[in-house]
């Protein structure tokens, strides 16, 4: 039981990280109706830029600010040059454009820097916390990674901040209007392009934070781009347009992944099920609710 809880808590904590990536997806999907496949590479680009600068003795804070500015500018450029000309195109071509962008950024990031594996140390302690005799009533001893908690707290703060921002500010209101109906939003004078630019810039920032956290955890290398593949089932479960959905989906995927790894892997002849397990979980959820948990069901008008 204690072991189960430990696995579950570990899973939920890593799920928060997934949620963070997923929220980037949701923001862009909400505002412009596209799944941004390039997000994984944006994450890599941010982390790689940061780590390459610190390796060249640039101060931690300065490196952070430079990368932050770069990501915001990148987001705005992408909006200008790729997404805006493709406005009103089909979902399929928008998605393909982000896949193309992904490929482009991959080449760029590794061309400008390199494709080596870099260690990243943010200064968060990696020692586990032992919760022994903390819950005498339950009689449980639980070991939890301190880094996981710190990462979850940072991610959670980001998520909370974003939620508040989009719930209580004018920009947030505009974004929700845009996601409801582009045309109507434009008709009442909401500057569509500016909203898109803001969303892409915010996504850039999310990528930076997520990239640093993931980079510290698994080191900065090409494998970081896999973040996109982790985030995908999360938002499919949660619903493509829902921020709460991204959070819940992240927790579900995080927990199910860890639990699956421990309890199900045996069934399937050993290791390595985590790649498809998340997708199978997502698939099961989708078969029950085809638009995700919080996704809106559309009535098709003819």
């Amino acid at each position: 039981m204690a072991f189960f809880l430990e696995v579950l808590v570990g899973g939920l904590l890593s799920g928060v990280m997934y949620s963070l990536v997923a929220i980037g997806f949701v923001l862009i999907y909400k505002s412009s109706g596209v799944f941004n496949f390039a997000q994984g590479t944006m994450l890599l680009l941010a982390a790689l830029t940061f780590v390459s600068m610190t390796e060249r003795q640039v101060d931690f804070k300065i490196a952070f600010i430079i990368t932050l500015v770069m990501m915001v500018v990148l987001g705005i450029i992408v909006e200008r040059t790729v997404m805006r000309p493709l406005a009103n195109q089909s979902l399929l071509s928008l998605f393909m454009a982000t896949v193309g962008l992904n490929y482009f950024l991959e080449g760029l990031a590794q061309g400008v820097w390199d494709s080596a594996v870099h260690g990243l140390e943010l200064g968060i302690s990696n020692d586990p916390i032992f919760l022994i005799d903390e819950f005498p009533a339950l009689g449980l001893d639980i070991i939890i990674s301190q880094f996981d908690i710190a990462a979850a707290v940072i991610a959670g703060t980001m998520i909370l901040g974003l939620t508040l921002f989009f719930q209580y500010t004018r920009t947030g209101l505009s974004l929700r209007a845009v996601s409801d109906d582009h045309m109507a939003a434009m008709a009442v004078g909401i500057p569509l392009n500016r909203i898109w630019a803001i969303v892409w810039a915010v996504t850039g920032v999310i990528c930076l934070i997520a990239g640093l956290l993931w980079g510290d955890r698994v080191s900065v290398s090409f494998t970081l781009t896999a973040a996109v593949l982790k985030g995908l089932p999360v938002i499919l479960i949660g619903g493509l347009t829902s921020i709460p959905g991204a959070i819940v989906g992240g927790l579900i995927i995080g927990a199910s992944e860890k639990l699956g790894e421990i309890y199900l892997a045996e069934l399937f002849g050993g290791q390595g099920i985590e790649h498809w397990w998340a997708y199978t979980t997502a698939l099961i959820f989708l078969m029950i609710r085809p638009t995700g948990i919080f996704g809106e069901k559309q009535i098709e008008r003819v």
Partner: protein
Amino acid sequence: MYYREAGRLVKSFASDRRMLPLMEDRWIVIAFLAFMYIVVTATASDYLFSAILIPMMVLGVATLGLNIATGYTGQLSLGTAGFMCFGAFAAFNLVLRLEMYLPFAFFFAGVIAGLVGIVFGLPALRIKGFYLIVSTLAAQFFAEWVFNAYPWFLDNNSSGVVALPPHHYKVFLGQESTPFNAVFWHSYQGRYLITLTITLLLVLACKNMVRSATGRNWMAVRDMDIAANVIGISVAKTKLMAFFISTFYCGVAGAMYAYCYIGNLDFMIFNLRRSFLIMFMVIVGGLGSILGSFLGAIFVYGWPILITRMGDWIFGGGTLDTAFVENNSKIVVGTIIIVLLIREPGGFAALWLTTKKKLRSWPFAN
């Protein structure tokens, strides 16, 4: 262009429905095939066969397969390499366990991959549009995992890679170098001819489907599934059939990839990156175009080779390192995809058609 439709009387529906209605086009295609079969076979070097011609055709078939699902039926798939993997392993096991003659093994590998495709296509009946990529990605990861986790599929070889043994290229009739025996299969010419013939047959079959009810149903589902349903097209059946045929092509391509191109069986090759590369080939070449499938395969596969060659030629041998070539291709292909999507969503195939149209009235503007 110095010939055109104008002034030619079409006298029957049959002649109106020909693949190539213009006589000149037919001659061009016949001449091209004669060139491919006779001149190329007689003169090309082993390098040209093994590193350029065979892989381009094989990838072209896979691209065509993906195009059937995505370009013609509108079902996004990110599992192409996974389905190729199923095809390659199916062919290997059919030859290994049933001692099947290779062309039959290719065919049934396609059928097996097709059935797998139907299984992973089933969610398409309930989930729509973008959500479908979850099921095709699941197929991709499942393929990578299953052939790693169960060495049985690899004849209990734990290294993960098997060089395809010569006896797999089975002797069928006699010892002479005829298309039916191992000597033939082992020469690059032989593999080239087999690949060319299979590719040709698959292209013809695809063209036939596209210009008949099968293709119309695919496109109807792609363009507007509610309307398709209302005129009595079974959307579910059409989608599943498209998945079957699409993954059949991918499966055959996978089997050819293993047997005709690299000569070994390795699940690592059929990874997600390859799935994406094939999707790039579809986008660059043109969604819903047979010609485009091959143009896309030629460009995306050929670009890094071209860059390397150019580098060798300009700066002397071996100056460009692989990392540079790889990053360069990523940037170039990525840019081309974005530019094409913005300017010409029909890809190279559409560019070719517009060029043809412009040439007709050249030198006058049109």
